[in-house]
């Protein structure tokens, strides 16, 4: 593939996919270890009606109203969960299940009922995103990377996801020690003065920002997959958190690149004419990586299977 074809058509979606995958995988490592991995799932369900309402009010798909809508939906979800838990006198997990699915269903219903035909906002878009449509029309080849005029035409999703990735990475590096210590031993972390409640909240908020920012470009399937699959596969490769996070980043990048390529060319190689959803294929590849790690990862046997010394 030469530059004049690759740069305009594939470079931006591939890079966007990489940024999405890594931005979700980084907080995913801690969420998985804290047994909160489904929070990513929950967030992407809950924010859908907020995003749809934001769109209905403003009439355009743009970042800030969508982020605000998502945040509003998250707050409503928290309040509603608490209300169901208290009034229904049931445990928090059950209340969450009810609210998350109800809000997601509400979001889908809103989408179906409203006129969103003029823009890329529909149920399929919400699930699979629209990675393939991020075409860089102004690019003519690799040299466009140094051409300010062409760079101005880069689809907005790429810089948005790049910025999100930088924010998530900074959070992870800066708060590495508190995150590690409080994830391992919350009680101890408090006794040395860490605000573990704020830290846990910050982690969820960072994950939510990554999920909402990724939503527009790639949909919710990939977000859910990237929060869990790369970190879970990475955990099976190593017994050190530092290496686990490094592996998860590697797996996320592999899933993004390989998934994009397979979605575009895989069906052609098989003799079929159409390509398949890139986001769906990226999620699939991450699932395959997890499966391989579960079968062949060097540290898949732990706990009771480990030698007692």
């Amino acid at each position, binding site marked *: 593939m030469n530059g004049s074809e690759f740069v305009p058509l594939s470079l931006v979606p591939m890079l966007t996919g990489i940024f999405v995958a890594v931005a979700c995988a980084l907080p995913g490592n801690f969420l998985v*270890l804290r047994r909160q991995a489904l929070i990513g799932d929950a967030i992407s369900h809950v924010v859908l009606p907020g995003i749809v309402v934001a769109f209905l009010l403003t009439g355009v798909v743009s970042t800030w109203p969508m982020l605000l809508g998502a945040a509003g939906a998250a707050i409503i979800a928290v309040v509603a969960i608490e209300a169901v838990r208290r009034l229904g006198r049931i445990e928090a997990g059950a209340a969450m299940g009810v609210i998350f699915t109800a809000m997601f269903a509400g979001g889908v219903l809103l989408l179906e009922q409203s006129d969103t035909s003029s823009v890329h906002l529909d149920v399929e878009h919400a699930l699979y995103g629209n990675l393939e449509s991020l075409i860089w029309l102004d690019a003519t080849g690799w040299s466009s990377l140094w051409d300010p005029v062409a760079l101005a035409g880069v689809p907005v999703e790429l810089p948005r996801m790049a910025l999100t990735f930088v924010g998530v990475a900074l959070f992870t590096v*800066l*708060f*590495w*020690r*508190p995150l*590690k*210590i409080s*994830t*391992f*031993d919350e*009680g*101890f972390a*408090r*006794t*040395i*003065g860490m605000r573990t409640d704020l830290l846990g909240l910050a982690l969820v908020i960072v994950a939510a920002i990554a999920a909402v920012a990724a939503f527009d470009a790639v949909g919710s399937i990939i977000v859910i997959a990237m929060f869990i699959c790369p970190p879970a596969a990475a*955990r099976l490769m*190593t*017994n*050190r*958190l530092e*290496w*686990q996070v490094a592996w998860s980043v590697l797996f996320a990048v592999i899933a993004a690149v390989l998934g994009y390529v397979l979605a575009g060319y895989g069906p052609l190689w098989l003799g079929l004419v159409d390509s398949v959803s890139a986001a769906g294929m990226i999620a699939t590849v991450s699932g395959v990586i997890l499966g391989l790690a579960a079968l062949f990862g060097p540290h898949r046997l*732990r*706990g009771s299977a*480990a*030698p*007692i*010394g």
Partner: protein
Amino acid sequence: MTLTLATKDGLAAQDAARDKSPLAIRGMTVSYGQKPAVFSVDMTVEPAKMTAIIGPNGAGKSTLLKAALGIVKPLAGSTTVFGKPVARVRDRIAYVPQRASVDWDFPTRVIDVVLMGLYPQLGLLGRVRKSHRDAAQHCLERVGMEGFATRQIGQLSGGQQQRVFLARALAQDADLYLLDEPFAGVDAATEKAIIKVLKGLRDAGKTVVAVHHDLSTVPEYFDNVFLINTRRVAEGPVATTFTDMHLQDAYAGRLAGAQMDAIRAT
């Protein structure tokens, strides 16, 4: 005693004792649901002694420690450590949680856990220098775990895990050591190693407070006892406080005669 405390001088004397105490708890009340787990408990720990917190299951022993440290939020009550609020003297406190309270599958090595004790020195981004590693390694030696520094923590036995937790507390180089059931589910060799370290700390002028469940070892291991059964039952030196009467009070008749005999025989 109540009478003397009611006088002005008595109250002043009580306050002075509290200000000097490494751990003074006042009116601590904690509830997880309808019933209080700890109710209006006062405690004044004597400096440079080893104090056992004893009481039946569910008596609020661990909860009292957690509430004092701010790990659980009390309904009422206050805690001072060396006469100051806990938040201002955190660097003088080392807490060893119950071993079962953490996930030992966590992907990290023994030495990394010990280095967590140095976090207050290192801060968010401070570099881990050789001096820090040497300090952590020395703490592992003190608990007899020097050969395990690079082991994954999931590969340790229960006793070894407990020693790693103790090594982390040693790395904090505190003046007050609070341990939650340090002997629960550990082998005899570990129990000996731990008690040796704790007595060493006491002899160096540090204060040790441990939630303890094995009544038969109380006289051998500890200087003072604090008996609790949701409310404070008694507090003082083992010789005068660790008595049949107080034990029956604390355990509300749940101690069988045979157990009492066993304790008396020690």
